[in-house]
């Protein structure tokens, strides 16, 4: 491995919530142009990691660094991280009553990409185009964000936001959970639209299914707040067959890179 720092790097990250340690030294490197998958049992800390990366105020970082383009972002506000090009597609997107999808996206795009950089007409064109691509009905754009949306509709809305914000590094926290087969294909198609040299991705999932559409180059396994195993895509099959007990028995507490 070269000494060059990765585009996005987490070093020995420790975080706790209400005094309870959850992340206990997570390390991870993601370069643009790479797809990473993160798997791990329920409660192992995957969503916590995602939230900490974005700067959720409920979590306290007790150690370690998060470097984005070489800059330590641990002290930055969530909005500053988003403006640098980080994106999180939430496992449980919340509803924002009173703010329409169109208005929400306009505000977000202005904030992240800069008001001066996106003309209103251009924004509308992009929004229409991306909505069509994700087969989101136009009527949704005038509804309040996620208000009364089905689980699958909310997930699709996360990806629509991602396409509009064009992040450099994106984390998708179980975007596949709750999606029907057709929706999964559409969402994956949307994600693959961004995949390329300017985009790095971390897909958090419990299932192999989505990884058939969004091909990972690397797979990481998180257990009890640590990445215990990192490897190539072939690990997915092994995990599907043998389950997490195999990881536990085989590697115990020690961190292993295949």
């Amino acid at each position, binding site marked *: 491995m070269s000494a060059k720092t990765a585009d996005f790097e987490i070093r020995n990250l420790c975080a706790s919530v209400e005094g309870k340690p959850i992340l206990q030294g997570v390390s991870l490197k993601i370069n643009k142009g790479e797809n990473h998958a993160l798997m791990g049992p329920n409660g192992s800390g995957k969503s916590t990691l995602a939230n900490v990366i*974005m*700067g*959720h*105020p*409920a979590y306290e970082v007790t150690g370690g660094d998060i470097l984005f383009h070489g800059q330590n972002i641990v002290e930055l*506000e*969530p*909005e500053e*991280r*988003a*403006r640098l090009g980080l*994106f*999180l597609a*939430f496992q449980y*997107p*919340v*509803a*924002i*009553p*009173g*703010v329409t999808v169109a208005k*929400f996206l306009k*505000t*977000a795009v202005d*904030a*992240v990409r800069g008001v001066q950089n996106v003309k209103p007409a251009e924004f509308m064109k992009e929004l229409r185009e991306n909505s069509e691509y994700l087969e989101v009905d136009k009527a949704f754009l005038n509804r*309040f964000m996620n208000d009364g949306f089905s689980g699958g509709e909310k997930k699709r809305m996360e990806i629509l*936001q991602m396409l509009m*914000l064009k992040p450099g590094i994106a984390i998708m926290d179980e975007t596949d959970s709750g999606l029907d087969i057709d929706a999964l294909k559409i969402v994956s198609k949307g994600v693959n639209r961004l995949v390329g040299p300017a985009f790095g991705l971390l897909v958090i999932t419990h299932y192999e299914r989505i990884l058939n559409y969004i091909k990972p180059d690397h797979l990481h396994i998180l257990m009890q707040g640590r990445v215990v195993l990192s490897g190539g895509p072939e690990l997915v099959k092994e995990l599907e067959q043998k389950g997490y007990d195999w990881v536990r028995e085989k590697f115990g507490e020690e961190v292993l890179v295949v």
Partner: protein
Amino acid sequence: MAVGLEQEVKNEAFVAGFDEAASRALAGESAVPALRELREVRFAEYRAVPLPTRRMEEWRRTDPARFPFERMKRLPTIPRGACAPHAWDDLFDVIVSVEDGAFDIRDRSGVLEGGQVLVAPLEQALREHADRVKPFLEKRARAEAPDKFEALGDAFWNAGFFIHVAPGVELERGVLLRYRQSGAGGILIPRVIVAVGERSRAVLVESMESPDGVELMSVVSREFHVAEGAKLQSTTLRAWGDRTVHLAGDWARLSRDARLEWITLNFGGRLTKVRFGSDGAEPGANAELDGLYFASGEQHVDQKTLQVHSSPDTYSRLLYKGVAKDKAHSVYQGQIVARPGAIRVDAYQRNNNLVLNDGARADSMPGLQIDADDLKCSHGSTVGNLDEDELFYLRCRGIDEASARKALIRGFFEDVAGRIPHECVREVVHSQVDAKIG
């Protein structure tokens, strides 16, 4: 009998400055016998109503002694005079302005000429249209006896108006009633009676303003009669200045299949106590009641709503949403009342509050009083700060914290604000909300 006498004296407690002599002086300002008679009858009613005290449930959180009647002066009957035009005038058929000691009625679209629609000061209505106004003085829109301040408004009004829409008329653009008061120390007492005839449709917007920094007072009493199959769409915007003290008692009576859409917007004022009641008096009556309030600084706003169902098969839906900030205190008291025999009633009442900081306070007391069965009633309330997860969600999309808060507070109001029929009123709401968020 000594005891009886004492009792009588007790019941005769008057609001400072509003006694028999004041009533006689006010009656003496008019040469219309019917008005003098009416004043006398209403004064007798007012005299019999006891003064509210803090011991009464409704007044527990708003001490009636806080209303500075003794420092204020009742204004004489407001005469007709010139009032300045306003940007909204073009949007309405008729504009009633009450502005610094004068009132003015302007008919923009000629609707008053045909006689189908009557908008007149009460005195003139009593003199020239007794047949039209009398029924609505005899039959009250109130489903219950007035409290002291409502009775005061009925007896001592100094700006009274009667709006009557004949049956089968569509008053599409409707009436704008604008109160603008700027002189310190005066008590403006508007009284409005609105009667919408059978199968008619009417729109009413009321706007109340005064400058900041001027201590003045207004006491409003209003009655609305919506006849069979008629529809009244009413918006009340209270944007008083920061030292205005306001009391109001409003009642709407809905006849068979009548529909009322009422939006109340309480933003201004130092001290506000308003009561509002709708009465589903006949089957098929339908009341859609919405309210927004935003109390900031040292504002105190206390609102009581009554959804009375006197008749079976009546419907009411109420949603009041409020924000309290700084050292402000808001109170919401709601009551759904299903009278005996009012079966198959469908009533809904909800009050949601955002309290933005520790020094602010919102009290919410929804309530039911059910004396009938076979009905569907629900009520509920929430009081809480902005949702941390919603804030985080917005911030993760690049929106800074202050803007995210603003978006959530605006959004909180938006379902009701979106139902405001007039764009110009909605704009005032948005600018008031933005200014208050700071």
